[in-house]
């Protein structure tokens, strides 16, 4: 099988599975306890916290809050930062639903929300964002890279521009898609809140973290026993957190090589496809992640193409998969001004850490073969 949907989920790293194994076995303790079994678990999650803090350059491990994944990290960042001060939320129309729906939830509770339009490539400008910010803005959320198109946003410049207008406004970025290939580093003047998910980088599903710059008060979105300094209640998923720590460390260590190999896979894929069939890059010439290839196949329904590809052993994605498994139209493509008919002909291919140029060539040959049969 040719798996080209790493942006949805990428396989668990073998070394991650190895470090997790004891915690789905003998080391079953609840970290919130006094005895040795509990302390063993507690030490494991604190080690993971330190591992992650070191990997992203956080000042203190306590700036890392473990969550049940990227969506929960986004909820905690957006709602959590806005609610304590009842301040406004400024974000973009191409954010992940976790950010947009958190903003809309806050809006229903009376928070002012601005969802900014993007250009044809799917980008906002720092100036545009700053123009919507004032002292009453609690949080600005702009993703590092889009999950569908892979298009990068100017997060550093946006943070700078926002601070020039309003010192107290928190800047959040969803780095879930970007973390595999781009440096995610904490620095003065950079984002205050950063969401990361484990299963996009070779960790297990259902776990992630939110970097929360020291001193920022957040309203929790999960209420209970006060774990994670009250910021995320609920018994820790110890095995998953241990796996998250290992996945983050391995990802950061291997990032440069990943970028080179995966870019070669993606570029070869697109090059070979273009030489055989008519395809359009959805994001045009926008700067994007090396892993993502979002393409329109004029005249071919994405739904048909995805089924044909799957039957041919190729896994790809389109739009947003809804509960039933049907394809829902993409709010990202709509925000980019792409007509529904064109959006319904667009498919995402995303490469992973074990892919290289040869994967790209094989993928292109297979995809082009299926497309040619449909034309």
């Amino acid at each position, binding site marked *: 099988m040719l798996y080209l949907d790493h942006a949805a989920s990428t396989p668990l790293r073998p070394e991650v599975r190895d470090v997790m194994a004891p915690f789905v076995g003998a080391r079953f303790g609840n970290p919130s306890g006094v005895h040795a079994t509990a302390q063993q678990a507690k030490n494991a999650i604190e080690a993971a916290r330190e591992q992650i803090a070191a990997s992203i350059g956080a000042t203190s491990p306590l700036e890392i809050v473990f969550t049940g994944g990227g969506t929960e990290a986004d909820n905690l960042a957006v709602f959590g930062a806005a609610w304590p001060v009842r301040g406004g939320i400024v974000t973009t129309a191409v954010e992940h639903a976790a950010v947009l729906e958190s903003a809309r939830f806050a809006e229903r509770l009376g928070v002012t929300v601005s969802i900014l339009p993007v250009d044809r490539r799917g980008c906002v400008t720092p100036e545009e964002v700053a123009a919507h910010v004032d002292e009453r803005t609690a949080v600005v959320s702009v993703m590092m890279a889009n999950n569908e198109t892979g298009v990068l946003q100017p997060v550093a410049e946006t943070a700078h521009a926002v601070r020039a207008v309003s010192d107290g406004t928190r800047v959040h970025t969803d780095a879930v898609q970007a973390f595999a290939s781009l440096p995610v580093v904490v620095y003065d003047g950079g984002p205050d809140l950063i969401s990361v998910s484990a299963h996009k980088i070779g960790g297990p599903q259902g776990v992630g973290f939110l970097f929360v710059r020291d001193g920022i008060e957040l309203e929790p979105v999960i209420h209970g026993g006060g774990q994670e300094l009250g910021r995320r209640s609920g018994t820790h998923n110890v095995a998953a957190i241990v796996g998250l720590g290992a996945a983050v460390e391995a990802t950061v260590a291997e990032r440069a090589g990943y970028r080179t190999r995966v870019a070669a896979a993606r570029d070869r894929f697109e090059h070979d496809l273009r030489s055989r069939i008519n395809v359009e890059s959805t994001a045009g010439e926008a700067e994007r992640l090396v892993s993502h290839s979002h393409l329109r196949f004029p005249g071919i329904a994405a*739904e048909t193409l995805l089924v044909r590809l799957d*039957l041919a052993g190729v896994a790809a994605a389109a739009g947003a998969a809804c509960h039933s498994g*049907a394809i829902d139209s993409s709010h990202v493509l709509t925000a980019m001004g792409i007509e529904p008919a064109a959006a319904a002909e667009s498919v995402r291919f995303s490469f992973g850490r074990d892919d290289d140029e040869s994967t790209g060539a094989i993928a292109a040959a297979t995809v082009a073969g299926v497309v040619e049969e449909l034309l």
Partner: protein
Amino acid sequence: MRALVAMSGGVDSSVAAALMIDAGYDVVGVTLKQWVGAGGAMPTAGCCTVSDAEDARRVAAQLDVPYYVLDYVEEFTEAVVEPFGAAYLAGFTPNPCIECNRKVRFSALLERTAELDADVLVTGHHARVMHDADGWHLLRATDDTKDQSYVLHMLGQDELSRIRLPIGEMTKVEVRQRAADLGLRTAGKPDSQDICFVGSGDYRDFLSDNFPETALPGPVVDTSGSIIGEHAGVTGFTIGQRRGLGIAVGEARYVVDIEPLERRVVVGSYEDLLVDGCTVIDVTFTSDAPPTFSEVTVKVGYRATAVPAVLAPSGDRWEVSFVDRHPAPAPGQSAVFYDGDRVLGGGIIDGVVRS
């Protein structure tokens, strides 16, 4: 050979998929997402719900065949739901399952069948498709109590050549037994009776919610035109209806006519209800059109009994003359013509003939 099996999540299509595997096909299961509730999610009550799709998915997994949910919401809304409301407003009693088969299942999905590199489209309908020297034939199901050939009458030679109905030879009991033998979770699942997009509620509620102009009151009159009552909307009535007329008179009364523009419902005696024939529009035949004055049997509703009649073309319509006077069929329902077990074709009833 690859077979695309339309799996609704019911026992019939589950067994149909299993039978196609036995017949040596590479089976691909699909569920059509046809209708969405508020918020764009699949409905949770009635037919074609999320849980039906999950049943279909689990059966496909158990049979170890690929399975997909395909989005036909736009086609279905346009071809089935909107005309459903419009037909009621025009005083017709539509059959949305027939329109779905005509415009979605056996046109859009049949087109998709070729695109998905499948040779045949398979459904769990109780009817039979056969081939002989004369071509393709659509026949009643072996289990007459479950026969669904009525809702498939629009299929022509091209469609029939690409459709397989593997459970048409089986009784419902046999289908359930087969499902149980295979350990399929749908073996004991009740048959769905509802119109899928109406859900578990009453179709009148669906109409008044989605087409509010169908819920305007009007008079109930007798055949002489005297007002004898009031109704809450003509869509609550079907020609031939006996119950729920809201009038108290001695002898049995039936709806004998609906005049949508005046929002009048006309009631009369059984004798007033009897007609000599009906006219049928949009007629198609499974094969060549039969000769004028062919003696056929005709079904004028899904649950109606087939009765002898004579067929003759009349302009762009066909006229059906019942051999014995027959209670008036409801305009909007389909008239389906049979030669014994064989479906000749059919169309939509648009009027009655009284001599």
